[in-house]
């Protein structure tokens, strides 16, 4: 996997809990081009342990002198976002992957409805740059908790004009998703990024209104949840390892020097899928990739976010 070495050029406090980081390539060259909706995975060395978190690229897709990511501080997380907020300063050096897009605009769509909840606004910042450039018909609906959480509002007003609608919960603003979906012309696609219940609700609403599945797009990265310690045996590699409670299985494999595949590290893309040969307990699936039936069958697992409650898990790797 190709890696980019970057330096933090600027850090901006956007709201109480959101910081915006400007990254430039260490060698001074422009960064690779990307498409709206892409993310990069940022590697952080936290007390000798490597954390890797995905963050959406925000800036204009036309200007790649720098990349822009925003991080919401998650107090109860395993430390990635806290590290970004507290340790990363202008001049800090980080490693990021090349951009990956799991949340692209469907070019066959005739109209595009974008729905953001809170920090879920970030992937739309670059999508809007693309939509404006291509002259596509779109609307952005952005819901957030209170005026203090209105990250990027002014920027969005400038970019989107009358295409953007804000919903401020503390002021009684409410986004009525079923109403929004029920009067869209044929060929409309809807995209959502936000808290899990909001994403689930949109999928249910769209289905009940008869929207085809492939017109409904969502991006949701799950942070690897904390859980119990368990043992994993990698059959082909001939390695046995322990996954501590505060580490994902993928991280534990990497720590043990295993070159395991990954892309999004948030249970969305399926790249890290591993075949399960044996499990004497229960697999705790936390991904958005496997179907319910696949999860129930217990034949595969996404080690980036999923764990097991068992004494022994054997993977065909």
């Amino acid at each position, binding site marked *: 996997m*190709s890696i980019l070495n970057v330096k933090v050029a600027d850090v901006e406090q956007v709201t109480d809990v959101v910081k915006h980081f400007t990254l430039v390539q260490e060698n001074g060259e422009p960064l690779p*081009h*990307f*498409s709206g909706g892409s993310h990069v995975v940022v590697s952080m060395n936290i007390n000798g342990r490597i954390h890797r978190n995905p963050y959406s690229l925000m800036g204009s*897709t036309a200007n790649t002198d720098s990349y822009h990511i925003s991080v919401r501080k998650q107090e109860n997380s395993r430390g990635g976002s806290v590290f970004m907020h507290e340790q990363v300063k202008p001049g800090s050096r980080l490693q990021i992957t*090349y951009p*990956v897009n799991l949340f692209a605009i*469907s070019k066959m769509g005739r109209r595009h409805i974008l729905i953001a909840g809170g920090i879920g606004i970030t992937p739309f910042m670059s999508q809007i740059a693309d939509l404006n450039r291509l002259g596509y018909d779109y609307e952005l609906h952005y819901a957030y908790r209170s005026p203090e959480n209105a990250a990027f509002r002014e920027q969005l007003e400038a970019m989107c004009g009358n295409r953007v609608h804000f919903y401020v919960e503390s002021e009684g603003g409410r986004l009525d998703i079923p109403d929004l979906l029920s009067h869209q012309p044929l060929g409309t696609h809807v995209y959502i990024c936000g808290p899990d219940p909001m994403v689930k609700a949109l999928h249910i609403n769209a289905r009940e209104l008869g929207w085809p599945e492939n017109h409904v797009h969502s991006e949701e990265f799950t942070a690897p949840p904390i859980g119990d310690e368990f043992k994993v045996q990698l059959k082909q590699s001939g390695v046995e390892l322990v996954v501590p409670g505060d580490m994902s299985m993928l991280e534990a494999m990497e720590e043990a020097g295993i070159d395991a595949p990954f*892309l999004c590290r948030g249970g969305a893309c399926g*790249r890290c899928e591993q075949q399960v040969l044996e499990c004497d307990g229960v697999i705790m699936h936390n991904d958005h990739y496997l179907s319910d039936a696949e999860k129930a069958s217990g034949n595969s697992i996404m080690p980036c976010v999923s764990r097991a409650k068992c004494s022994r898990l054997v993977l065909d790797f």
Partner: protein
Amino acid sequence: MNTQFKQETFRDDYTYTNSAEAIRRFPFPFAEDEYMYSVNIEMHGEGTGAAGSVFEHGIDVDEHYIAECEDRRIVLDEDPDRYTALPHMMDAQWDMVELMMDSLSKDYPEHFQLQKDGDNWHWVNKPLGIDQTFVFGDEATLPMQPFEYISRQVQGDWIILDQRDDDLFADMGMVTSQADWSMAFDAGMSFKEWHGPVPQANEIGIFDRALKYLLHLQYGSPVRRLNWTMTINPRLDTSPENYPFWGPDNASVTPENVGDKVYLRVELQALFRLPRSNAIAFSVRGYLISLNELITYPRWGKRLHRVLKQLHPDLSEYKGLDNYRQTVIDFLAPLDDGADLGLGTHPE
């Protein structure tokens, strides 16, 4: 690299030949005596191939460059539909201009030069005598669509796949030297619709896995694989469109002419993720070598003999070899002493 570009033809009088150097670097595909259809993907691009090999650079330019571009021009004059681009592929068109101009100018600076001043680009292609200034992103500043413009200046076919709905769609292509498939017909097809004809592969789930792999292909990490077939005469345009013209050649092989007339055709297939469009560029670069050229390396002659002898009948039919396969086997048999060749594709 000091390439002497050859004047030669891929039709009518068929003056195409390989120099000793071109034979030595030929991408012989058989590492074992038995051939099985497989996806066999490996990394491609900078640092993934030996110096001088066809894998040294992302886009290989060899002694046949000028002649292949000329053959493409002839095909397009007769049938402009060999170039197809659906309207939503404009970002991908510019991605291709960047990919091709960047890699040619970086890898072959003695032949190709590119200067960028913001979006104002200046492109020089010495072998084809092209000197063009244009504005990147502004179609009106090029004499034709951006992808058609640049793909007329590279060897091999290029198919650009749009990614949506967890699938890949063949929504753009420059296809003038294909082994029996039609861009005009297949335009807009999904990955499986388009690969449908390969026997056995569907059944064993190869395409499901390959598709999943490709959906995750990353920008900056291109991959490649080799595929092969055989062709009568050094003909690049073995399209279904022109099958009435080249089909009769399949019945023209005799024990007397087999060494000159039958060519092993190896396709170097490379896949590149494109940055702005998130599409995938699929390049299919064909290398042709006559049996007489091939057997200048006895190891290759023996290997090909064994592969053809054991080839599954379905694959033989699919690749269109049935009319002449036995003649080729009979030609190669006396050269095969049965010695253990070991693993590997190397010539000696």
